[in-house]
């Protein structure tokens, strides 16, 4: 599977112009805060509209300004993991995990609940409330929830930034496993060089709304 982006946008008051491709495995989108990394993810997820350009995932055009294509976020099949887990506080862990799974057509599902909970070590948390989980557990559930929607591309926006070092160490092996087991591209936004070195197969470096290398 592959991923292709070539877009221009205006974010706040600075112009953003980004083009790169990614393949299966983990590609780090690396750069200082304010470089426009999260805006790139938001455009891919469909919650921020580029001014012009094209975004293609696995042969499916998600956005194309010339052809007037702009798929709604719920039709993009792009998994998004945020810095804060954003679990639904009124639903149990189980129902959080299955939220996107149930909305995915059965023939399009490749992720199985039992496999995903085993992979992330969260099987014992299924009946709990999100509020009773630690930060690391919440983030693992958020990863599981995104995976269970069987996405064709996984976006991770500084998923470790709000965790302390011990919690980071708790999550990192799981992300390595995702990288090695999943047959989809993962775009991983970070400004932490150690995470890039440990996780990334490819690096796209951004600064001031531009790709500077990669």
């Amino acid at each position, binding site marked *: 599977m592959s991923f292709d982006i070539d877009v221009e946008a205006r974010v706040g008051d600075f112009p953003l112009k980004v083009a790169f491709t990614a393949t299966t495995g983990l590609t780090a989108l690396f750069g200082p805060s304010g470089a426009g990394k999260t805006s790139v993810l938001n455009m891919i*997820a*469909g*919650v921020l509209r580029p001014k012009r350009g094209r975004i293609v995932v696995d042969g499916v055009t998600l956005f194309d300004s010339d052809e007037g294509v702009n798929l*709604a*976020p*719920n039709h*993009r*099949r*792009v*998994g*998004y993991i*945020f810095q*804060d887990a*954003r679990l*639904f*506080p*009124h639903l*149990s862990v189980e129902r959080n995990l299955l*939220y*996107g799974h149930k*909305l*995915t057509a059965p023939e399009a599902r490749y992720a199985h609940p039992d496999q995903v909970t085993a992979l992330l070590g969260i099987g014992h948390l299924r009946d709990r*409330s*999100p*509020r*009773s989980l630690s930060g690391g557990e919440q983030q693992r559930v958020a990863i599981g*929830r*995104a995976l269970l*929607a069987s996405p064709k591309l996984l976006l991770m926006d500084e998923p470790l930034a709000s965790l302390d070092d011990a919690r980071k160490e708790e999550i990192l092996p799981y992300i390595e496993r995702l990288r090695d087991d999943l047959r989809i591209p993962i775009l991983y936004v970070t400004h932490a060089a150690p995470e890039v070195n440990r996780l990334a197969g490819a690096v796209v470096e951004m600064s001031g709304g531009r790709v500077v290398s990669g």
Partner: protein
Amino acid sequence: MFDFTPAEWEAVHLSLNVGLWGTLGCLPLGFVLAYVLARVDFPLKSLLNGIIYLPLVLPPVVTGFFLLLAFGTRGPLGQFLENTFGITIAFRWTGAALAAAIMGLPLMVRAMRLSIIAVDRRLEMAARTLGASWWRAFFTVTLPLALPGILAGAVLCFAKSFGEFGATITFVSNIPGETRTLPIAIYSLLQSPGGEAAALRLAGLSVVVSLAAVLGAEWMERRIITRAGT
């Protein structure tokens, strides 16, 4: 103390009816207004806001007077309803419900608006990326999270509708069995010699109903929070 006369029961029954229908009528409009005020930016938003809150700050008799001008038998809206749907509002209990709804609307919108503002929009964004349409995200995330405030708004509106006096008596007058609601009945009793005992009975009853509404809302709110698992 609690052996009410048929006329008193009528007033109680009428007030409950007015409160119920006033609140039910308010709910859809109140929610849409609250949602728009909480989420959408548009020109003249503060003007709309001001108009919704107007009944809260205007003397109720002024609101009743405006209602009379608009919905009275000769008022433009009153004539429209009469000619188009055959509905008469003036001097009917439906008019009392309308007055109650308009007086209760600001309280309802205020409570709902705050609860919608408190819903984290990033959760809705998460739902969308998980495959939920806008409507599904609304019904599975926004609405349940805003529910305690929606409920509180409905109860406030009911309490206001149940006890509305000034706008009601100005708009639909004081007709026994049709527009003489509980507070208007109390007022009438106090105007007649020897009515204090009956007035006190009705006053006690209004305390009971109002307290039950507030406690009931609190109980439901707690249940919602418990279900949400805090």
